[in-house]
């Protein structure tokens, strides 16, 4: 299925990339001082990310809260200005665009937000929500064209035509998210960045929106970046998945391979922690529990970002050498010095690791359940 999905774009990863990001950084300054602001440090929300998204495919970004996945999504659209790096969209250098050029470029890159109730103006009718982008970007010739487009959009996202006159509070969560998607589609974009598109919705509704996104991709040849914390959903919709930890990608893989064989210790732990709705599977799974919390992105650990919580940590290299994201097999990139050894089973997760530096965030343990 996944290979079929990638076909329209050519041969998967060798296909033409709609989006190429290199060395993207978003550092937020931490300021102190009453009269004069002094910069005392930086929160490295996104710290050097490279990614390529082929036309017509879906790239999934996963990670826990605070890992920088949403910031990365927004930085690609320059909704948050990146502090370094390049973004190339269909051959255009996005960061070099100014004023009117950037505004025109935005027609082709749209966003779907997490909470449709928060991202829709409660006092704006659906018609007005959908007409606004059409007006701003001078779509068609006047009101009749706009009304026609609104009807088309409602139809495409599966809302009744009479929804146009209604207001956000009159809809259920799933319908509101459809309005949010219709708004993103209004100007026929090429790229849609969806930030947690289903996590605010009820379980039975999530599947409707997931299916809608997939249908739209097939019909309109859209390219998606889906940002979400729910790995099961991301894996379902994505062709390629990037796993983020503390502002950087630690693993990138075709989505079918990621669950079958996660390579990075963080991905391994993440996969093992996700509950699966089947008691038989749950009973015999080996769960790798990470103790402690995500370190602060203002004060990232030296060496490998994950080494303070890593159950596979080795005495050498991990604490003092930052691993690069490298391709160890075709299509599979991982940022771990020992990925090959872990994959081959030479290194087992530690029962308990004792390191004075790690006591702050606890010590990893393995629990067989």
């Amino acid at each position: 299925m996944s290979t079929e999905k990638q076909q329209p774009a050519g041969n998967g990863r060798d296909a033409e990339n709609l989006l190429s990001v290199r060395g993207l950084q978003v550092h937020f300054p931490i300021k102190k001082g009453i009269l004069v602001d002094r910069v005392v440090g930086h929160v490295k929300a996104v710290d050097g990310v490279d990614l390529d998204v082929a036309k017509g495919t879906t790239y999934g970004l996963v990670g826990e809260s605070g890992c920088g996945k949403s910031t990365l999504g927004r930085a690609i659209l320059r909704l948050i200005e990146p502090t370094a790096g390049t973004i190339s969209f269909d051959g255009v250098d996005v960061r070099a665009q100014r004023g009117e050029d950037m505004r025109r470029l935005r027609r082709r890159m749209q966003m779907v937000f997490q909470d449709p109730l928060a991202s829709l103006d409660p006092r704006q009718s659906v018609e007005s929500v959908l007409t606004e982008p059409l007006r701003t970007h001078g779509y068609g010739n006047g009101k009749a064209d706009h009304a026609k487009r609104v009807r088309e959009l409602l139809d495409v996202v599966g809302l009744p035509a009479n929804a146009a006159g209604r207001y956000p509070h009159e809809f259920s969560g799933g319908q509101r998210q459809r309005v949010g998607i219709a708004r993103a589609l209004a100007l026929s974009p090429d790229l849609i960045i969806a930030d947690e598109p289903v996590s605010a919705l009820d379980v039975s509704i999530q599947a409707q929106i997931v299916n809608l996104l997939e249908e739209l991709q097939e019909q309109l040849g859209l390219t998606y970046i889906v940002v979400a914390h729910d790995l099961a959903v991301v894996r379902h919709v994505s062709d390629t998945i990037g796993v983020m930890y503390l502002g950087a990608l630690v693993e990138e893989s075709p989505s079918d391979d990621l669950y079958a064989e996660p390579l990075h210790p963080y991905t391994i732990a993440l996969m093992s922690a996700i509950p699966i709705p089947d008691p038989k599977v749950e009973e015999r799974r080996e769960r790798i529990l990470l103790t402690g919390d995500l370190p602060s992105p203002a004060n990232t650990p030296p060496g490998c970002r994950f080494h303070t919580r890593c159950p596979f940590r080795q005495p050498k290299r991990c604490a003092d050498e930052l691993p690069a994201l490298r391709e160890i097999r075709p299509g599979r990139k991982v940022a771990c010095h020992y990925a090959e050894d872990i994959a081959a089973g030479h290194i087992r997760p530690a029962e308990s690791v004792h390191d004075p530096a790690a006591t702050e965030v606890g010590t990893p343990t393995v629990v067989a359940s």
Partner: protein
Amino acid sequence: MSLLDVRDLSIVFSRRGRRDVRAVDEVTFSVAAGETVGLVGESGCGKSVTSLAIMGLLPKRGAAVGGSIKFDGTELTSLPADKMRGLRGRDIAMVFQDPMTSLNPVIPIGLQVTEVLRRHRDMDAAAASKEAASLLERVGIPDPARRLKEYPHQLSGGMRQRALIAMALACKPRLLIADEPTTALDVTIQAQILELLKELVVDSGTALVMITHDLGVVAGMCDSVHVMYSGRIVERASRWELFEAPRHPYTAGLLASVPRLDQARGEKLEPIPGSPRDTIPWTQGCAFAPRCRNRIESCTQGAPELVADKLRPDHDLRCFNPIDVAEQEAVTL
């Protein structure tokens, strides 16, 4: 004998000038010591209101609680407020969903944890503070002595949730109600918290009521599972039974609409059509009928009762036209 016995629980909210809302009706379940029971359903199905009713936390005015809630033989629905205060926090404790809103932001963690100990276990400040530190340690908070002096905003989400659990465990409750205890947390933290709750049930024989919308969480830890829809229990079975052969179309629909990590990708998900708002009142028929694939005529003519399933042992069902087990096996193959 079961520790908690809920019989025919109904909760009706009334407001002047508005129609009464029957949030929960005919809810019956029991929990024994050392047992974990799951209440599963989507938002608005009445699962959280049920837990508030057990805790006696519903407003006195505007919410009418019917039926019976027996805790170790004591009827809770008619218990005077001062007696209830004696039980609440000591014998029955609750972990709420959102640790940020259920902790007081302007009071240090330590004071909030020791409050329970001083109220129910008559400890003096020094002893309570020592006990609080050991509780925090037990739930896996490093450096508890320092954390006790800190305010909720200084703790991470996972740690706040653990602090809440520590408060709930302070008096070694016999019954713990966990209302979506991990929904606000990341999966790796969720795994830690669930492990902690499992240990608690095994080690101290606490009865646990787990309220969640996450079927994966249920599959991992609940002995028996109650699926709720629109205020009523529509299916009840052991987790083994329920996941192997869901008989109610709603349960089956829920399972089919979540993508599974361990299954081949690419299959289209099968969502349940409509939204949880599209219900009909139970007095007119089955509330799920408007969204149901298996709807037959009788579904909209009267409400089905929750009765023992004829085909499967230890399985209760509220459905006129349940999913055929044979048909289901064909689907899973």
